[in-house]
């Protein structure tokens, strides 16, 4: 059996494997498949449950959040200073956040890689060196350009507005095959069309003998004589979700792939320390701007995400189309009571577009009284200015496309009825604490560096402090990348896994 549902386990369990991986998302799946294909015994421990595409494909958005997302989709980064509270979405299921992404595939921009390989000294992370890894992942997840015919009217309107303003828009690539435009990628694809890792990577890993224990909360990495030797934790209870039946796994390699929110926590619980662990986290703070048109838009007809603009990338802003199921949009409409419901009745006339900030690393994850992290984030003045400029630009696009009203993500704000009314966003912006912001890409909380004082892991992915302990997820990215991070995370995991296999005998000798 490839997936064990830990909730059904009644007695303590032990296992001994070559490699134990904590986390089954975009990075964990890649390295599990690589190691299994190479003949290594691999066990992956996933805190979340296991749902097949047929099971999660029929979940309503609220059910999807409760079952597939951390904190039922209610996790937040607490803003320090003049910073918004940022809703932070992360997956917690076999397949991790890949179940909940819009599927967008971007390579890490070359100028970012140039900075990594020169300024930061990470010489193996040049565009040329990473090109074969990018290509391999892109083929494995079926990265394809979203045809213009799949654009929703919602996206078309913003593209029309952008064109009038001289802002070029391009089609995005996504990891899809046979997309039918259900426009609910972020709640689990109902048509098996999104190539999340449960579809693109895990079947191959399982075929080569990899196993997954779901509902398995890893509580610490066991370290002996400066070397990782295994992990221990408890299966979550079927009724309460609380940790119950214990398990222990001995392994030659311990690979942490819990994502940027949880990997630092596990390392801290396991005795690692240092000024970089859990710090410098970037979030790509995002915002969405909605617009009401006189015409019927039916934005739910089409690909959820299909176009983007990097025209303002030099100012740290990327625009990406986005839509959500009507029930989710209804929750985002301003107002209370009848005023709120009157706007919801116009949801078929609504167009939506999003933007994100290429931010400085102002985030931290800390341990506290819960097994979930305390996420803190301080937005810099530069990023705040970018945030408001991005919102204003999207608002202008909407009016240029003929929108009658623009809805900004500002608590308590009425709709805006003219472009001039948006001037305040750059001339006299409100407190950022009144902004509704989202994050889908926490990165960099255990960053890679060429020296121990500069980060948490070596360029090989192995931690500086403990031998045979690797981190392979988005937490190793040394800076924000300014674009959707799924391909970046999978590519880094592939690169690290190839290095691990190349030097396997050296690492294994330590474990002997």
């Amino acid at each position, binding site marked *: 059996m490839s997936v064990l549902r830990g909730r059904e386990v009644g007695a303590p369990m032990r296992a001994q494997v070559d490699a134990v991986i904590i986390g089954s998302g975009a990075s964990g799946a890649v390295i599990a498949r690589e190691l299994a294909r190479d003949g290594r015994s691999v066990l992956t421990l996933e805190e979340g449950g296991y749902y097949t595409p047929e099971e999660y494909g029929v979940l*309503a*958005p*609220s*059910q999807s*959040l*409760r*079952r597939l997302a951390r*904190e*039922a*989709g*209610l*996790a937040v980064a607490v803003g320090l200073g003049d910073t918004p*509270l940022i809703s932070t979405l992360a997956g917690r299921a076999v397949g991790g956040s890949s179940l909940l992404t819009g599927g967008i595939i971007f390579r890490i921009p070359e100028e970012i890689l140039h900075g990594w390989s020169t300024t930061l000294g990470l010489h193996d992370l040049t565009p040329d060196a990473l090109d074969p890894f990018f290509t391999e992942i892109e083929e494995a997840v079926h990265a394809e350009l979203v045809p213009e015919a799949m654009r929703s009217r919602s996206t078309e309107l913003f593209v029309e507005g952008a064109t009038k303003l001289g802002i070029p828009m391009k089609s995005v690539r996504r990891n899809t095959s046979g997309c*039918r*435009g*259900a426009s609910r990628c972020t709640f689990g694809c109902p048509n098996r069309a999104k190539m999340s890792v449960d579809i693109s990577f895990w079947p191959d890993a399982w075929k080569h003998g990899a196993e997954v224990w779901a509902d398995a909360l890893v509580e610490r990495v066991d370290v002996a004589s400066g070397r990782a030797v295994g992990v221990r934790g408890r299966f979550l209870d079927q009724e309460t*979700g609380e940790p119950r039946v214990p398990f222990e796994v001995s392994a030659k390699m311990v690979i942490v792939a819990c994502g940027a929110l949880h990997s630092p926590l596990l390392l801290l619980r396991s005795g690692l320390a240092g000024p970089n662990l859990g710090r410098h986290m970037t979030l790509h703070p995002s915002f969405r701007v909605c617009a009401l048109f006189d015409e*019927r838009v*039916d934005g*739910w*007809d*089409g690909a959820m995400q299909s176009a983007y603009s990097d025209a303002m990338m030099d100012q740290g802003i990327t625009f990406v189309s986005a839509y959500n199921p*009507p*029930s*989710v949009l*209804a*929750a*985002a409409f*301003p*107002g*209370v*009571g*009848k*005023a*709120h*419901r009157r706007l*919801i*009745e116009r*949801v*078929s006339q609504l167009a939506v577009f999003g933007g994100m900030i290429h931010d400085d690393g102002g985030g931290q994850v800390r341990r*506290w*009284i*819960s*097994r*979930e992290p305390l996420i803190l984030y301080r937005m810099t003045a530069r990023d705040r200015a970018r945030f408001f400029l991005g919102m204003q630009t999207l608002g202008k696009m909407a009016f240029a496309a003929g929108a009658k009203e623009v809805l900004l993500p500002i*608590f*308590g704000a009425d709709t805006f009825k003219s472009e001039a009314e948006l001037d305040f966003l750059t001339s006299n912006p409100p*407190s950022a*604490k*009144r902004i*509704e912001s989202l994050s889908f890409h926490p990165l960099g909380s255990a960053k890679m560096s060429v020296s121990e004082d500069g980060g948490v892991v070596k360029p090989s992915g192995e931690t500086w402090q403990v031998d045979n302990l690797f981190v392979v997820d988005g937490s190793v990215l040394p800076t924000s990348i300014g674009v959707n991070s799924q391909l970046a995370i999978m590519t880094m995991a592939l690169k690290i896994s190839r290095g691990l296999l190349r030097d396997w005998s050296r690492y294994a000798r330590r474990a002997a």
Partner: protein
Amino acid sequence: MIRAIAEALFTDDVPLDDAMLEAFVTNIDGFMSPASKTLRAGLMLMLEALRWLPIIVMGKPATFDDLPIAARTEMLERMDRSRFSPFPLIVVAFKTMLTIPYYEDDERLRAIGYPGEARKRYLTVKT
């Protein structure tokens, strides 16, 4: 308290029936149960704050659930527009958890124009 908030958010000319109010409570429980203890505690704290806030927000010596429905709606509106950032956060948190499931009902979706299974894009691809 959940019933009182739901009534403030969703009561039209016709009052919400008991089954629907109970469904709101179940939905909130569905969000809170899988959340961590700290998040649950935070949400409970918000609820408790909301219960006693009429004294500050409305100047009325009553708990939120004792207010008439229209006054509750007015209070949530005031909090939503408040410059004191915790106030709108409380409103948004419960509005989100109550609104998403409320508009997952097929009938309500059709009422706001969402065609459900009769969606054009699906049919285009099928044929």
